[in-house]
């Protein structure tokens, strides 16, 4: 039997009744023609030759704009969707400038080591084609000691990651004199990754970097590339402290895309539980693969990748051979990746099942269809994943299969939110006091601070005085000097804001215990207690023992069908109210809070059905966190609800808000906490707190405060459009005692909404 083409397949799908009934929205995006510009006239002949050898006779408009802007001395941020040739946006101007003057240097920053390797290979290919002897090196933990000296002295392009810059390059800047004296360009790829705590840290690392550059007399131009987010220019400017020229008109062509929102059928009407997204994806992917339509499947965890992968491989074993469907996880070597890429091009590989790792800029070429197992969490990553499908000619099919989670249900039931609204805002707070102090120590270690010196734009004299009182710095002759025997960068991890972290040790292999990560204490209480299931890069680990005194969590890799959810008894008190919007009925505030939390017990909750399948106690001491928070309070005597109903409504509202907030702020769900209090300590009123889960705050709750009304409106819509009758895990959470939970929640949210709305109007 002849295989169907994708086009035939799509029209078959459109007519299929069973399929049709689950499709919430079928959205077609018309194809875009490429917009070209000729190769710039100033382009060095060797680069021209290299491009021509690669079959590139002209540039996409955004590449040309990037080249011209950088050559005229502007820092730029280019918004580059998947597969739009972003690497040329920085490689062309950088290589051109080094060809013009071989003493020029460039520093490339990628968020991960794997990405650095990948980009180095790509850059070297370009340099080879140009018959160039420009040297580029990666400098990371894997760089052999024997060539480090050479990289430091002679590397014209040094490729590294922010962590290395922070702990190995800047504290030893005197060994990098020739780099810093001649540093012309700093490339920051995957800009959107630098948000939240990580971004706040990196913004400070870049301030340190610029300080060192200034000391050696250089003032580099920044070249950033980012996935689509709401505020690329703002993020780039706050990260680098430079005015940015934004390049967001993309000249790359794209195919006609069918974006299909698919909601699996309800299998339990009462609980509003839908069939597992994983099972649906398995079925849909096998239909495509049987027609030999090249398909990429995204799943959120390594375990799910394995489940889907083994099923699909089994299915097509006889027809296509097991090697025709490949798994792809973070940490693959470039050679393995090249093999898959080559297979896709040759037609030996039909399917790739991947965790979100692939979304991170690694290019494996493009496929015809893309299936997402659930909403990937942010609009930006959804578009990145969708970008994997769609060759220049022809059509592309993108299926988003929703799970039962409230966020997924919100997105699938409001496809217009996804398609029309702008993507999330990436927030950083470089002035988080904990993070800032840490980097001031590092900066003082690197060079003494002069009186009156700013750190970026920040006035820091008070902080330096504090550090002098703490006997870390010594003030003399109008300068603050580092005066301590520690190596400060060593104690500071860019991936967390807490000062004392819990180290996570994997003991799956008897002879090879290794540290796989660390976590701040506050998070560790609920995520790393004994028996907790901890997810790391999609893999599940069970905590075997949490040594709280030594701050070590011993984990072992497991495969289970549940996750753990810890109850945190939280006491919140408001320390200072910075902003307030209010009406007669309600108030929305923002300020600093103290959170005292104690983990009490945890539940084991089954994936998909969210059944509670067991529980246990947690015995850990109370922890205190000072952070920023947004809160909504109802005023006295409003709503005529009994306490019981108020409580129920607040709990429901917090559940819905927790699902909705990531829609507005680009963050991981655990970065932000929502806590209802029937009688808040500071005002004795029913209050809903939304706080940043990092000491000092990282700007998430501030954003919630700014958009209070929209956030509440969306939470209300989530609840109202849910098909359940009295609350379900997909909207306000289950397990609420009395009836009317849904109504109570709506009432409370409406009061917040109208109260805030009348203020706005």
């Amino acid at each position, binding site marked *: 039997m002849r295989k169907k083409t994708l086009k035939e397949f799509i029209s078959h799908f459109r007519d299929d009744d069973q399929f049709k009934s689950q499709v919430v929205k079928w959205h077609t995006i018309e194809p875009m023609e490429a917009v070209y510009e000729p190769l710039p006239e100033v382009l060095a002949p060797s680069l021209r030759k290299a491009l021509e050898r690669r079959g590139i006779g002209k540039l996409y408009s955004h590449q040309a704009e990037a080249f011209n802007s950088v050559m005229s001395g502007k820092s730029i941020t280019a918004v580059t969707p998947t597969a739009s040739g972003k690497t040329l946006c920085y490689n062309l101007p950088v290589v051109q400038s080094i060809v013009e003057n071989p003493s020029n240097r460039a520093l490339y920053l990628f968020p991960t080591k794997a990405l650095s390797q990948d980009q180095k290979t790509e850059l070297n290919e370009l340099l080879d084609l140009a018959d160039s002897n420009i040297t580029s090196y990666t400098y990371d933990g894997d760089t052999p000691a024997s060539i480090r000296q050479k990289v430091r002295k002679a590397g014209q392009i040094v490729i590294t990651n922010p962590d290395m810059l922070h702990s190995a390059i800047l*504290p030893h800047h*005197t060994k990098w004199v020739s780099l810093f004296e001649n540093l012309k360009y700093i490339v920051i790829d995957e800009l959107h990754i630098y948000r939240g705590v990580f971004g706040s840290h990196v913004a400070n690392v870049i301030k340190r970097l610029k300080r060192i550059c200034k000391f050696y007399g250089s003032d580099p131009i920044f070249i950033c590339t980012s996935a689509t987010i709401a505020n690329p220019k703002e993020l780039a400017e706050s990260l680098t402290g430079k005015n940015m020229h934004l390049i967001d008109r993309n000249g790359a062509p794209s195919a006609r895309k069918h974006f299909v929102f698919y909601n699996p059928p309800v299998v339990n009407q009462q609980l509003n539980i839908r069939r597992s997204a994983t099972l649906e994806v398995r079925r849909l992917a096998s239909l495509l693969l049987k027609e030999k339509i090249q398909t990429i499947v995204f799943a959120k965890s390594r375990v799910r990748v394995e489940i889907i992968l083994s099923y699909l491989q089994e299915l097509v074993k006889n027809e296509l051979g097991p090697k025709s469907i490949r798994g792809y996880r973070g940490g693959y070597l470039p050679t393995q990746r090249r093999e898959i890429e080559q297979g896709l091009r040759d037609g030996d590989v039909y399917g790739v099942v991947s965790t979100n790792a692939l979304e991170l800029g690694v290019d494996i070429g493009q496929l015809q269809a893309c299936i997402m197992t659930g909403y990937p969490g942010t609009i930006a990553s959804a578009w990145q994943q969708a970008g994997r499908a769609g060759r220049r000619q022809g059509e592309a099919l993108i299926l988003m299969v929703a799970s039962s989670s409230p966020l997924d249900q919100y997105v699938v039931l409001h496809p217009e939110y996804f398609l029309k609204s702008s993507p999330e805002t990436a927030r950083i707070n470089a002035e988080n006091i904990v993070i800032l102090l840490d980097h001031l120590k590092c900066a003082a270690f690197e060079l003494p601070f002069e009186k009156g010196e700013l750190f970026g734009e*920040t006035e820091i004299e008070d902080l330096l005085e504090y550090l002098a009182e703490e006997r870390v710095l010594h003030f*003399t002759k109008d300068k603050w000097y580092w005066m301590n*025997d520690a190596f400060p960068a060593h104690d500071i991890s860019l991936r967390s804001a807490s000062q004392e972290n819990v180290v996570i040790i994997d003991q799956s292999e008897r002879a090879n215990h290794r540290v796989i990560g660390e976590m701040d204490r506050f998070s560790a209480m609920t995520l790393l207690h004994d028996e907790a299931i901890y997810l790391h890069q999609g893999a599940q680990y069970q905590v075997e023992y949490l040594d709280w005194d030594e701050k070590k969590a011993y984990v072992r890799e497991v495969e289970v069908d549940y996750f753990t959810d810890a109850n945190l008894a939280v006491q919140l008190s408001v320390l200072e109210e910075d902003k307030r919007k209010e009406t007669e009925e309600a108030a929305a505030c923002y300020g600093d809070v103290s959170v005292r939390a104690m983990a009490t017990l945890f539940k084991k909750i089954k994936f998909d059905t969210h059944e509670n399948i067991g529980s246990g106690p947690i015995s850990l001491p109370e922890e205190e966190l000072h952070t920023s928070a947004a809160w909504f309070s109802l005023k006295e005597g409003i709503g005529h609800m009994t306490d019981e109903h108020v409580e129920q409504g607040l709990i429901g509202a917090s559940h819905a808000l927790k699902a909705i907030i990531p829609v507005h702020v680009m963050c991981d769900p655990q970065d932000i906490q929502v806590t209802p209090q029937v009688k808040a300590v500071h005002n004795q009123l029913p209050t809903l707190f939304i706080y940043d889960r990092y000491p000092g705050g990282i700007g998430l709750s501030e954003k919630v405060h700014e958009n209070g009304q929209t956030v509440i409106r969306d939470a209300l819509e989530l609840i109202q459009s849910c098909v359940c009758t009295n609350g379900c895990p997909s909207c306000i959470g289950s397990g609420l005692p009395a009836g009317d939970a849904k109504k109570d929640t709506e009432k409370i949210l409406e009061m917040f909404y109208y109260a805030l709305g009348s203020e706005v109007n």
Partner: protein
Amino acid sequence: MSLKKKLDRMKPHLKSNSSGAARSESMAEIPHLDLWKQHHTDLFWHENDFCLIREVHFPLNYQHGRYRLSDYHKIMEGWQKANASHSLSSAGYHPEDLFFFDTETTGLRGTGSTIFVLGHARFAGDKVILKQHILPGPGQEIPLYISFLKQVNYKTLVTYNGKSFDWPQVKSRHTLIREHVPKLPQTGHFDLYHASRRLWKGSMASVKLKHVEEQKLGFERKDDLPGYLAPAIYFDFIERKHPEGMIKVLDHNEKDILSLITLYIHLSELLLDQEIDQTSAEKYELGKWYSHEGEREIGSGLLEDAYKMDGHISAAHNLAYLHKKNKQYDQAEKLWLKVSSNGSKKEMVEAAVELAKIYEHQFKNHAYAITMAKKALVLIDSELETKKASDLKHRIKRLEKKQGNL
């Protein structure tokens, strides 16, 4: 909210560092100058700034452990006469050329780790002059380095791990003030740490200078300040300005430098074979070292001595390699036969393989060659050393083929 207010709120939750220094006012006068002067320390002025320099002289009959400083002149003469070339050789140098050099720092690595004592000693006629350049406080590095660079010949530094620690640290701090001080030239120098490791790492649990002093130089420290306390004492000093702690640090640094002198004497005596008792292990290490430096003849002489002294098997093994290089296969065979049954496992395997090669290619005795190759194969762990195992199997196969053809 201002950062200051935030800071006040967060203070109880921020980790506090207790060690270290506090603020100070600008230095209006130099406190305790009389006390400094009592300890042979004076000011060095550069423009409007200063550092401290302590200068002490030692007579040549000064005894430090089992050596007198005057022993230095014997070994210097020895090196001038010696025919051997060696990386520790001071042939061609005048006794006054060498600078014995050691620093005290506030940390172990990174730009922010400051050198606060630069100490050096050299021979000058009938005495040894020891000088210590002391940083009175951060921000006074310009006079410190200017005074230091003026007085030191960097081409002939003698250090203990100075190649990878003290000198890179000097370079790093120098970079920070490079616009104000003379350029730092390339240096070549004698690093006695590497020499000590080479000779004694097999026989000593640690080759820290303190242990070398005790076990090789006959020098025992009394009331000595542990080196790791030096940073804390310095932080206290810049806060209180009282020199008492620093004087102990300077005393510690002085002893380090004197030990550098006697260690250089001791190592030179070993290398020059000057009326000194050497164990077979030392002769063996010295022999390997000389061979490594290209002095094969001296090397093989020392190895032979070690082997003769008590049948030192590793010496025999190394000697056999030297014989092989000189195409003296009979001697090599004799030694390797010993090693192949008495050496460490690694040596036994290597000896058997070498014998197999000699029998096959030199003596054309394929049967013996097969025996030796098989012996090696039995000795190795073929699961772990797969490459070696397959090489050996290949060799045996080839030999058996050759044998069959005859």
